[in-house]
């Protein structure tokens, strides 16, 4: 059965969540590479679509610390409320 964008997005979401639990941040490229290596029938455009879905729906957000990362939404440490 061919893998769906939804499923890729779910797996990416889990990867980010697990990384964040141990205090690590992942870059979009980390997610894309891992998924591409795992499945033969997944190409780069599919991984891009999955990321677009994750950020368009607000499940993940972009952050910037010298480079761009993907994270679960949370209150920013530097933020002044």
């Amino acid at each position, binding site marked *: 059965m061919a893998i769906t964008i939804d499923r890729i997005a779910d797996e990416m979401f889990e990867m980010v969540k697990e990384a964040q639990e141990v205090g690590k941040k992942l870059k979009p*490229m980390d997610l894309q590479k891992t998924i591409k290596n795992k499945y033969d029938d997944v190409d780069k455009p599919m991984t891009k679509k999955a990321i677009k879905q994750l950020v*368009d729906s607000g499940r993940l957000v972009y952050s910037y610390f010298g480079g761009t990362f993907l994270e679960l939404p949370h209150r920013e440490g530097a933020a002044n409320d």
Partner: protein
Amino acid sequence: MPKEYKTPQLDELEKGPWPSFVKEIKLAAKNNEMANDVLGQLEQSYDERLGHWKHGGIVGVMGYGGGVIGRYSDLPDKYPAVSHFHTLRVNHPSGWFYTSDALRKVCDIWEKHGSGLTNMHGSTGDIVLLGTRTEKLEPVFQELAEAGFDLGGSGSDVRTPSCCVGKARCEWACYDTMKACYDITMRYQDELHRPAFPYKWKFKFAGCPNDCVASIARADCSLIGTWRDDLRIDQDEVAAYADGGLDIFNDVVLQCPAKCMRYDAEKKTLEVDNESCRRCMHCINVMPKALRPGTDTGAVFLLGSKAPILEGALLSSVMVPFVNLDDEEEFEDFCDLVDEMIDVWCEEGKARERVGEFIQRVGMGNFLEAIGLEPMPEMVAYPRDNPYIFYEMEEEEELEEA
């Protein structure tokens, strides 16, 4: 009533005949509290020789990873109006041509939602809108979109492409820089808004080797106009320059880096050995009425420059010596080659490694092999100067066998 700050140090920067950002911030501060608190915080920074801006991590508009640069004051109690002070990069139109109506709209939106302070334009090329609050980002974005503007790039993405004014105003433009810049911006929308690279990637388009956008020094991907045929010479105009008092021998011929010009002072004629000409523009700049670029024009595609941030500065090096970007098919081929380069860099590049640094690390020979481009003499500055391209023993053996 806004607080009034004493700013003796900032006031120093209002002196002198040149434009002053202090004068402009003070003007904005009359109607805008954010601009006013900038004055207070800046004066304190000058006193203490300490910056008081914190970098924010998650700040942006829904769905985009680029375009907003998060900043917070680390003295929010003292300067509450700048407790958030995020910057927006707004994608400028090719060549920075606006109607005054469009500019007014941008400024009105910004006075309503932000500090009213702008930087026209940032070194990225974008319209830079300085200072707003997190909750204002979406409304600003929506109103800008309605006015026909989009956010530009920031972070590890394709940065807002920029170009010189090109054919709109400059007769030296060897290709349509504004069109190329626009087409690339549209083609790389996804890469511009959703950062997925090891680090930033900049495209800059210059119409001729004068390189008014300084692409060779700061764009990962520099497209610089050039010509393949002969420089055009109008000998009557050469004579007119001589009669007008121009010292053609000393100021033109002797300054030619290729030493490929010959001037006959008696006949007042100029000769160019076009095989040796380096297309540097010097002679054309000095005698614009007498000399012009040729008519078989296009661009040199160079790769790898960057300003010093993590490592030292790099200049771009030639990848393709001539590509006619105005031709649809050649433009497509150019994009395919760029995609190939980006793929290799994304696959193998380290975090925060610009493509030029990546090439230095893996070697130009390996990079060319990975993207499937043949090495050629135009890629090196001097013979035997760049020892990174080797010829293969196998090739020699094949030749011997043949």
